[in-house]
């Protein structure tokens, strides 16, 4: 079993039992049983290791009801999220698979994306963008932006190029980063998919990758080096690049945007990759804008509930979690909830609609573009 590798973490949790991970865990808050918290899952992992527990569909649901937001891990000293990913991988290997996850994985294998969209439409957004095949910096668009938010991608790519960057783009040859595969336990598929990507990156002579999707960013920057030997490509999130351009005076937001906003740290960008300040720097560069922080921000930011395969498998629970975060955003008195993650935005959009919230959801880059 893969969780064997994490035996020390599992037993350390078992002997610590501090439970500092529990109260703010978004799924624990929804479900109410200890088992849905990090320390609960650690005991489940121990039960499986020792043969006290047997895998089952019900156990799979309990293990899968985790957005891998990493709140628990930031309040701990163990590799909590990795343990849960290994736990999921063990269950998948033993034939316990969530049907929605499995379908999405099959789609990625077939069409390069989990959204049942044809591969040859992936690059439709890129018409007219002056990409350069010779550039060693690659724009990695991911799956969600091209198919769900193509306008965002188009204007963001232009922004980077206008800021002086030469960018390559793989077009229809680009493939899903495999985030869903890794986080939901389809490890063999993740490896196969990643190798394909790696080959494409090498063929294109890529030295640096820029992406706007926090999920892709985390997987490429943190997980690819762990899973693939000699992965030496520098990976940056678009907010890091833009913040640098602002510093260097290559971008000058001058049109005032008179609004009170609050910023939601996407878990994969913030807590996982610790990119907290660059998005705020971008907000602060916009004249007229007032940023009001939510009670829980940066390391403490509450998850939107969509990550780790939650949106695919448990959309009702994912949206309930998002509704709580929207309430927290409302409490700041902000008119706008700003973030920069297509998955968070997808889920927040539903939460705002379902809860009839007056707050307006705005993407960080869109806000910046308005001011340029």
């Amino acid at each position, binding site marked *: 079993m893969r969780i064997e590798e994490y035996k*020390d973490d599992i*037993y*350390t*949790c*078992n*002997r*610590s*039992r*501090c*439970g*500092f991970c*529990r*109260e703010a865990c978004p799924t624990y808050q929804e479900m*109410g*049983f*200890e*088992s849905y918290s990090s*320390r*609960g899952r650690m*005991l*489940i992992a*121990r*039960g499986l290791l*020792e043969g*006290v*527990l*047997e895998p*089952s569909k*019900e*156990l799979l649901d*309990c293990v899968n009801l985790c957005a891998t937001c990493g709140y628990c*891990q*930031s*309040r*701990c*000293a*163990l590799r909590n999220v990795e343990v849960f990913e290994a736990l999921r991988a063990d269950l998948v290997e033993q034939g316990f698979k969530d049907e929605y996850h499995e379908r999405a994985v099959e789609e990625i294998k077939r069409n390069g994306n989990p959204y049942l969209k044809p591969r040859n439409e992936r690059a439709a957004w890129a018409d007219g963008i002056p990409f350069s095949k010779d550039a060693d910096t690659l724009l990695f668009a991911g799956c969600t932006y091209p198919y769900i938010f193509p306008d965002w991608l188009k204007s963001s790519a232009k922004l980077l190029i206008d800021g002086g960057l030469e960018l390559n783009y793989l077009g229809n040859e680009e493939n899903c980063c495999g985030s869903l595969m890794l986080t939901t336990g389809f490890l063999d598929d993740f490896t196969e998919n990643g190798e394909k990507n790696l080959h494409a990156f090498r063929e294109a002579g890529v030295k640096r990758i820029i992406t706007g999707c926090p999920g892709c960013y985390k997987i490429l920057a943190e997980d690819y080096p762990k899973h693939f030997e000699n992965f030496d490509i520098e990976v940056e999130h678009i907010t890091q690049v833009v913040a640098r351009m602002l510093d260097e005076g290559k971008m000058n937001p001058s049109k005032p945007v008179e609004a009170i906003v609050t910023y939601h740290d996407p878990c994969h960008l913030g*807590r996982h990759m610790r990119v907290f300040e660059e998005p705020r720097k971008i907000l602060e560069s916009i004249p007229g804008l007032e940023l009001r922080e939510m009670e829980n921000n940066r*390391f403490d930011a509450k998850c939107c509930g969509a990550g780790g395969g939650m949106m695919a498998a448990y959309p009702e629970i994912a949206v309930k979690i998002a509704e709580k975060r929207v309430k927290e955003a409302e409490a700041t008195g902000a008119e706008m909830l700003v973030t920069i993650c297509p998955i968070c935005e997808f889920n927040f959009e539903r939460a705002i609609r379902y809860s009839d919230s007056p707050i307006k959801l705005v993407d960080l880059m869109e806000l910046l573009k308005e001011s340029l």
Partner: protein
Amino acid sequence: MEIQKIAEEIANKIGEEKVSTEKFHRMTYSRDWSPRDAKETILPDLVVVPSTTEEVAEVVKIAHKHRIPVVPFAGGTGMGGGVSPVRGGITIDTKGLNKILEIDEKNLTVTTQTGVTVLNLNRELEKHGLWWPHDPESKPSSTVGAAVSCDNDSTFGIKYGKLVDHLLNAVIVTGTGEIVRLGHRKALCTSTGYKLHWLLIGAEGTLGIVTEVTLKVFPKPETRAVEAAVFKSISEAIGALQRLLTAGLSVESAHINCKKRLGFYTHAYREKYGREPEIPDWAEALLFVSFNGDEEVVRFSHQYALRILQESGGLKVKEQEIIDGWWTSKHTLKFEPYKQKWPDSQRTKKFGAADLGIPIGRIEEAYQKFLQIAEKNQIEVLGMCVYNERPNRISPSISFAVFVDDSNPDEVRRFYKYVEEMSKMAVDLGGTMSTYIGDGDRLGGFNRYEHGEALNYMKKIKEVFDPENIMNPGKKFESRWIKPEK
């Protein structure tokens, strides 16, 4: 009756989403923080997460009808095995009772369901400029109900006391499923009847499940100063603390650490900052204190205290990082992300402790005996810390802490032998065998060594509340680990 049928019966009363017999759910209620074999697995037969007093009563009525045990489970951070379902039965996760019912600013009280964590309660109180100064290190996880039922310690005990100083009123579900209100509502004291609500403090769920409480709260003081000094002996540090109190200072917290514990602070400092702290070799004790209140008063108290500490033989700790480290660990709990203290420091062995109350004048003697008893039982010493838990007096609740390798069942057994000998030592010195952990599944029966005939009266009291002995059986009067004196 088959457990599945009982689960259905309960589900019909409180909703099926609040009840489970799934083994993996039950697994997560199998232990607390007490030392036990790393692989020990004692499971309840079913788990319920009720959210009202009435729902708890429905569950207990069904348990009473079928004569099956009811074990309350809250934060799960206890050190005494109090939540261990040693006889199976129903584990009630009280964290479903998570509503704060009333914050009464005028009368300085809060009425709350008991599954709210201490930290979450204080977050809400803070919005009203108030706080409940009960401050265990487990506060992000442990609940108000557990604070009542386990009578645990507080960082601020020397100013604000323990639960006996805070608990005004309580609602419990007894072992028959009756709902009973005990206490004196929002009045701060009473002379009528028996103070039955005080019986709940430290009862560990053996009399019933505490579902609601009214607590005394305080306006939140403006500011605080934290200080530390080292002394040539533990007695000297105790003397210095007594001087602070006699001088009329209002000390907010006061912890006295032995040389071994001092060693952990200096080690952490060395590791983190790469330099040697200026702590002299003669330092045998480390006293941490804090003062809170208005800025001017705190400033004066701090300066005056420094003078007294120095006059009493103390040397101020110069390294602010050591003082901050203590404060982080005891109060703010703002550990660096991904480097939280509890899991980080228990990667190979866990903490365990004998929690003794020792008369003030015999602490030095107890410390020497602690080292001998630990050595005799081949248990690695972590150190001694004297907490003070009653207002405005030296009121020792002492942690005699050790490391326990829980992968070694023999070491776990030796640990409980150590607890047994330490407990006897405390009673022999005129003290008590537990001050913050409780009896749990370790001292029951053996505690007759301390209580004598009084233990029989305690049993009779339990029978009044719980005639069928279904409420957390196997605790308080029986033990898995330490057997009664013949």
